[in-house]
């Protein structure tokens, strides 16, 4: 049987043809994210100073020619730290969303496809996860597993599972109504084949959109957890922990908080914009009247 990757060429073309992110705002957002990706990859090679180098300059110095973003309380170069922090910021979102996507989609598709007791059981579990406030769930998971980039991302991922499971199940149920599922069964195709070859490709659009929306959620959640001290371990640079550790200097040296905040907010905003444009696409109710915003022609 061909793997998913073998199928990608034909399928990929179709995705791009229907690529819902168009328009000026969306293009800016995509460019911003690309910039962050470049920073995340090249970060350590292009920073003017080592991000964790204490005393790279005087302590708490304001922005200057040597230190464009100033220095923090330990005299570390803020520009270098802001650039370096792009990596954990993106990685956390990717880890969390990939995890939630993988588990949630498997749960949702199998629940929708198999129905019966399996569906009933899984739906209960998902409802249960949904009944815990997401942050409380994430914090409890971290409390048990310990903090750090991967654990915090997994905690966020677990909290995001219900969203993917619900949309995957709902979309699967809609696809199950179609005759081609019965036709495939008659052809002797088993459940795994049907789920992979028929259901997954047909529910890809809502899942892709859900992914975009959740990237921004996961991004914000990771920074919040990092702010609370559950993220990547110090002294590694991370937007949330940079903001929380410089908070006490907010009144006297506001730039220590300002630069990581701006860097982080820009990234979340870019994810939000893409998620918003895609959400409009998913939700036909709001498709009217967004043409100027997304400049996407109705299909």
């Amino acid at each position, binding site marked *: 049987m061909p793997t998913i990757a073998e199928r990608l060429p034909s399928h990929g073309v179709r995705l791009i043809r229907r690529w819902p992110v168009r328009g000026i705002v969306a293009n800016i957002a995509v460019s911003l994210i690309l910039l962050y990706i470049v920073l995340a990859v090249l970060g350590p090679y292009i920073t003017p100073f080592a991000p964790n180098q204490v005393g790279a300059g005087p302590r708490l110095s304001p922005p200057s020619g040597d230190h464009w973003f100033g220095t923090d309380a330990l005299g570390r170069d803020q520009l270098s730290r802001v650039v370096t922090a792009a990596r954990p910021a993106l990685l956390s979102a990717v880890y969390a969303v990939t995890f939630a996507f993988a588990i949630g989609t498997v749960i949702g598709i199998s629940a929708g496809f198999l129905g019966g007791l399996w569906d009933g059981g899984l739906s209960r579990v998902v409802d249960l996860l949904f009944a815990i406030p997401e942050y409380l769930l994430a914090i409890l998971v971290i409390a048990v597993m310990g903090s750090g980039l991967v654990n915090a991302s997994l905690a966020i991922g677990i909290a995001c599972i219900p969203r993917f499971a619900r949309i995957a199940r709902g979309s699967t149920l809609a696809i199950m109504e179609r*005759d*081609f599922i019965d036709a495939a069964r*008659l052809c002797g*195709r088993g459940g795994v084949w049907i789920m992979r070859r028929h259901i997954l490709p047909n529910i890809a659009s809502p899942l892709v959109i859900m992914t975009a929306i959740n990237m921004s959620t996961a991004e914000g959640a990771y920074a919040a957890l990092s702010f609370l001290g559950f993220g990547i371990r110090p002294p590694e640079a991370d937007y949330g922990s940079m903001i929380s550790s410089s908070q006490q200097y907010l009144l006297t040296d506001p730039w220590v908080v300002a630069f990581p905040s701006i860097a982080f907010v820009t990234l979340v905003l870019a994810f939000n914009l893409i998620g918003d444009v895609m959400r409009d696409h998913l939700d036909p109710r709001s498709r009217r009247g967004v043409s100027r915003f997304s400049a996407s022609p109705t299909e």
Partner: protein
Amino acid sequence: MTDDRTLVTTPADEPDVVLDVRDAVRHYALRRRSLRDPRRSVHAVDGVSVQLRSGRTLGIVGESGCGKSTLGRLITGLETPTAGTIRVGTNGTPAAAAFGSGTVQAVFQDPASALDPRMTVRESIGEALGKVGRDERERRTDEAIAAVGLTPDLGSRYPHELSGGQQQRVCIARAIVDEPELILLDEAVSSLDASLQAQILDLLQRLQRNTGTAYVFISHDLRAVRQVSHSVAVMYLGQVVEQAPAEAFDRGLLHPYAVALRSTEPRILDDGAEPIERIVLRGEPPSAVALPPGCRFAPRCPIVEDHCRRIAPDLVEAASGHLVRCHKPGDLTLSGIGRAGAGTPAEA
């Protein structure tokens, strides 16, 4: 077409039976509103027995809700009967065991729904070919595409790039590619316009002549059923009320429901035929949940009598190969009530 029909009456070298349905029953349990409610169920198919031989077509006709589609799903094995047996293929495998083995294939009503929008024509057709090598798969797919009259270049297209008629041809190609013994055609031409219907019916008949596949042709459209079927079963509320050779439908129908159905069939006037009175049935069929005690058709029957409401009639053979479920078979004819002699079945 007419030469095909003559085959039916030839008793010599009868082809193999490829479908044998005996007393098939399918009930659906209804959800109870409270625990005190009685357990109730819908009798979608309630004791149907039919047989079909290789190379023949069995037409099943009836109003929506009469259970014809459920019967179709039972034959394909997509659903299992509550009671009774359904055997398919020359070796008489139970439908449930044959499910997915390639013995039975199906063409559904809406080709747009029956084709995966994310699969090319070739991928969809090839799906029916199970464990065959790549080369053979390609070759047989090509043959199937040619057999249904599509050009090879359509093979790499997606369903939305095809017309409705082309889509249905793809579905037929998928159904025939693995050479099944029996194909279920569930309202297979109903979604197409008249000229396309004729083309597809013609294609189906040609394929049958070449391959000898048996068809079960389900439709609410009696005319289409008569055109392709050797034998037709009329269903009402989950039961067969009349089963007859297709020729009998021109004049010799015995069950009042079948006569009424036939009388409403649109026809071209001025074809020299006897005038037909439209028999309009009053009311809706009774609910398949709360069935009347006597004949199921009694509440709507134009010639109903008292004992019809008390005693349910059995399906009896009125003439050779002609079965009917009625206390007064033949009392209602196409030319009106009571003009044929009571109780004398008109021979075709």
